[in-house]
């Protein structure tokens, strides 16, 4: 019963609990920061592609709708597809900015 790894006395219990907690905390902290880093990196990558395509698509739909409403076929469609492309690019740039300075204050976006 005299196993040095499992002392049964309660005298140093507090110390042992503290040591175990510290170990656990640092381990879990490392793990979460590493995994969230990988996850967010891949997440950002997946976000970017869709943003570009959808920007052009939404721009095209709005342009087409305005053309149909104002009877200016096809000029607004062309214009809004270009706007849509720019909007998609801006979304990508914003995503990239957010990814690079992650610990930002809530007031800036």
């Amino acid at each position, binding site marked *: 019963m005299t196993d040095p790894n499992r002392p049964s006395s309660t005298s140093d219990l507090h110390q042992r609990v503290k040591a175990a907690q510290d170990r656990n905390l640092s381990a879990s902290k490392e793990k*979460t920061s590493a995994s969230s880093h990988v*996850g967010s990196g*891949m997440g950002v990558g997946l976000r970017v592609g869709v943003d570009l395509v959808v920007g052009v698509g*939404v721009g095209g739909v709005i342009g087409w709708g305005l053309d149909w409403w104002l009877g200016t076929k096809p000029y607004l469609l062309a214009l809004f597809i270009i706007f849509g492309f720019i*909007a*998609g690019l801006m979304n990508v740039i914003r995503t990239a900015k957010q990814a690079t300075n992650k610990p930002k204050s*809530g007031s800036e976006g």
Partner: protein
Amino acid sequence: MASPLKQFTIEPILDLSIGETDISFTNSSLWMVITALVLIIFVAVGTRRSSIVPGRWQSAVEYFYQVVADMVRDNVGSGGRPYFPFIFALFMFILFGNLLGLIPGSFTFTSHLAVTFAMAAFIFIGVTLIGIFTHGLKFFSLFFPHGAPIVSAPVLIPIEIISYFSRPISLSVRLFANMTVGHVLLKVIGGGVVALGSFYILPGIVPFMALVAITILEVMIAVIQAYVFAILTCVYLNDALHLH
């Protein structure tokens, strides 16, 4: 071999309708109910006998709580605290839906644009209303970048409006496309395993190895997509609460 798109067919289980509207209980609805039940059981059992030193199950629940709490705090700040329950439920529902959808023979409701767009549209409308109620007409300054010259307004405002309206679409298309593509890929390569393996055992091993790797990748994507959906909801909420 069945078509790789057959797994996405909606089959009514219980035919229901209100007037002309078809509201049948389908396999998609069934799996949403199963997801919600699994989620409720997971969280309820984990918090039933909550102790200071958590057991395995309780730690698992607390881990998810921690992830979402950190996400809301980092992306929205303290103003996002009232919305934590919604984001937690959203994240867990999508996550469990994605993961349960990977079980062979199950149905992935997140692989339907109707489902993901309904969620994204709800978030979009909700976030816009929150922004308007918090800031009133000042909310519309979101469409004009702070400090830009007034001459650039005719160009910048349409671009910002397109950018704003593309949010629910990119949010829903991203989740739907990732889930659909992943499941089609699994089915196609799975078919390759059967076709090549029945021809001779050795060539069947190559697509089988690819299938194992892609299954792992799909589990990762299921988690990441749920995370991305939730984090973008937080980002949009932050924009509505704090403007630029």
